[in-house]
């Protein structure tokens, strides 16, 4: 093994070690890759931007470091007198411009896909309240509220004496999660009843404000079943930090069963009320 090879493999080891760090939940360093095509595109975009910024950083800070080490008075250097160069200025105006185009084009392409909700197979209406979410399935008339789970609600009180680290999914758990089918393009309509809220699930890479008097649209198509968690991301008052978003993504037939059960339950309640 040559020396260069050894250094290369050592570096590779370091990179692998660094890459495994995010596996420890508590030391997450990076954005989740997510479970939708869009979230993968977004993640790639994020990493592209990150690495380009790293390269620029190495260039700029590297030049500074060389200057700081070599062009210091204590080394007895005489300062140069150059202070202008149109050619150089033009070069370092054009290079960043080109880099920005490299970033802007894929970003624009992804954005256009993100904002195109045509061909959605189903629609869900989400309404933000201080401080809970309402989910409505207009096609079947199912409607329910989703609020912070009791375990978190008890533990979050100041002086509750409960160690929050013992609460499962502390602040990220609700009584009634939103349920959607996997591999289905779901259109989400967002509005609010009092102040502005914002609905975000990092794993889907979707976030949009729920604004009273407005209806905003976004969509998602999730590739993997599972439970995905997010939070309200627009300051909405005292309990802004306590209205999580939980989405359960299930197989299509399971979703149909769940929906039928919900419909039956709601009919029962309506009968009982009458």
């Amino acid at each position: 093994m040559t020396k260069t090879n050894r250094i290369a493999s050592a570096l590779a080891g370091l990179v692998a070690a660094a890459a495994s760090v995010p596996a420890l939940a508590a030391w997450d360093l990076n954005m989740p890759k997510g479970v939708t095509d869009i979230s993968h595109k977004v993640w790639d975009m994020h990493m592209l931007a990150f690495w380009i910024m790293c390269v620029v950083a190495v260039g700029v800070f590297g030049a500074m470091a060389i200057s700081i080490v070599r062009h210091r008075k204590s080394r007895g250097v005489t300062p140069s007198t150059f202070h202008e160069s149109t050619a150089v200025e033009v070069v370092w105006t054009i290079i960043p411009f080109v880099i920005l185009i490299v970033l802007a084009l894929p970003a624009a392409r992804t954005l256009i896909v993100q904002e195109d909700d045509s061909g959605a197979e189903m629609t869900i209406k989400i309404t933000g309240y201080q401080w809970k979410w309402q989910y409505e399935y207009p096609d079947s008339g199912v409607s329910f509220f989703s609020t912070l789970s009791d375990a978190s609600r008890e533990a979050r009180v100041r002086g509750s004496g409960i160690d929050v680290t013992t609460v499962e999914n502390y602040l990220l758990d609700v009584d009634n999660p939103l349920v959607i089918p996997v591999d289905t393009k779901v259109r989400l309509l967002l509005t609010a009843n009092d102040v502005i809220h914002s609905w975000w699930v990092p794993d889907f890479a979707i976030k949009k404000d729920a604004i009273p008097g407005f209806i905003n649209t976004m969509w998602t198509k999730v590739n993997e079943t599972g439970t995905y968690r997010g939070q309200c991301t627009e300051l909405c008052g005292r309990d802004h930090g306590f209205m999580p978003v939980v989405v359960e993504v299930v197989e299509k037939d399971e979703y149909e069963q769940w929906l039928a059960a919900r419909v039956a339950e709601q009919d029962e309640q309506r009968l009982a009320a009458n």
Partner: protein
Amino acid sequence: MNAATTDTHHDDHHDHGPAPGLMRWVTTTNHKDIGTLYLWFSLIMFFIGGAMALVIRTELFQPGLQVVDPQFFNTMTTMHALVMIFGVIMPAFVGLANWMVPIMVGAPDMALPRMNNWSFWILPFGFAMMLSTLFMEGGGPAAGWTLYPPLSLQGGSGFPFLIFSIHILGISSIMGAINIVATIMNLRAPGMTFMKMPLFVWTWFITAYLLIAVMPVLAGAVTMLLTDKYFGTAFFTAGGGGDPVMFQHIFWFFGHPEVYILILPSFGVVSEIIPTFSRKRLFGYSSMVYATASIAFLSFIVWAHHMFTVGMPVSGALFFMFATMLIAVPTGVKVFNWVATMWRGAMTFETPMLYALGFVIMFTIGGFSGVMLALVPVDFQYHDTYFVVAHFHYVLVPGSIFAIIGAVYYWLPKWTGKMYDEKWGKIHFWTSTFFVNLLFFPMHFVGLAGMPRRIPDYAVQFADFNAIATIGAFGFGFSQLIFVYVVVKCIRGGEKATDQVWEGAEGLEWTLSSPPPYHSFTEQPVVK
């Protein structure tokens, strides 16, 4: 002839120095006294705003609510921002401008000295009013410094006091800005053409125009909030035919130029410090001027990048994304020019230079995350998370604040006539730099991992980095006591400073004595 001589003599005698006692500070129209007042005011507010930040960080040290009520937490995030923006960074820059602009352009004083007094003295009253809302029924403002309706309209009885105090701060800023423009336009010494002005003067000249342009916009926006709450209008209430998103557009039309109001004078400061300690002229002077002007222009057409998630047409989002990314070009030119200034210079690393170098590196890190934030698809992930908090604190704390501190170290010997304690200055720099990164760098990680901003309590997976950030916050906060120590020590005594102060310093301010005479240039210098 004889009469004229007597007159001059009489004037000289009359205005020889400041009035004695406390009234000197109340009635002063002297640019240096007012500059000093601004700077002390800003330092006091720095500790008040910092104490609020420590309340925030204490609550966030561990998951779970331990210290404050969530509503008070929201009040703290709101007031911390208002105090730091309007009470610390802006007054500090106006203070530096008051002290240095007349001296740097070869003038005896500011062009409008009485207005200068007024523009400072309404500031403490404005802030007293704003801080008094903390003790009113319903508590202080808690809707974030951006005051988005409808939430801000839920405010308690302190709300109209908040609005009125913002009006006062706006009036103060506008008067300060008009004064700076008038001084630069009218009082430049013979030969001091626009393209010979020091960059600090240039950046402030442009900043002053930004202030005059956008402070009235803010005043209009908050006045509409006031009438919505108390006079039955519905500018921002959808139920009455209004539009809550319109407030965000108006606010950020003010807010984005405001961001550059908070950073352009730092560019000026750094462009003064780096050439001095590199013993080499600033590289690309004219491109620096044009870059500053371009940034100022672009600042007016990028506002909606603060609100990509409100749901705007794709074409709108694309426009604001491209315009925002363009800002990286002139900002990049500035950073490259600073590095080119250092290149093949003969650098020394006194405290002001350390702060300037720290500024270039850490401001640029904030710039990198800024470019990432401009990309709309990814911004949906970053928006309103701690990634944004990390971004704007990197440009404002090791950005603007470091530039201000660097400027104070740079000009303190000129102001006091004495050298500060270099050893403690360096200790201040290194502790500040270490802790500021400990404080803000982990915020990138928790933000990317999904922690929203403005929450008093968080899921347990964010605990470790939050604990680290809190340690950084206390370290950074207490490091600033070193700054107070160094400044007070320098005022009270120290080695006598020369007029030149720094070996490589160039410019009119270094031709005056240290400290400069009470009426800076009583005779106009001639600039070749």
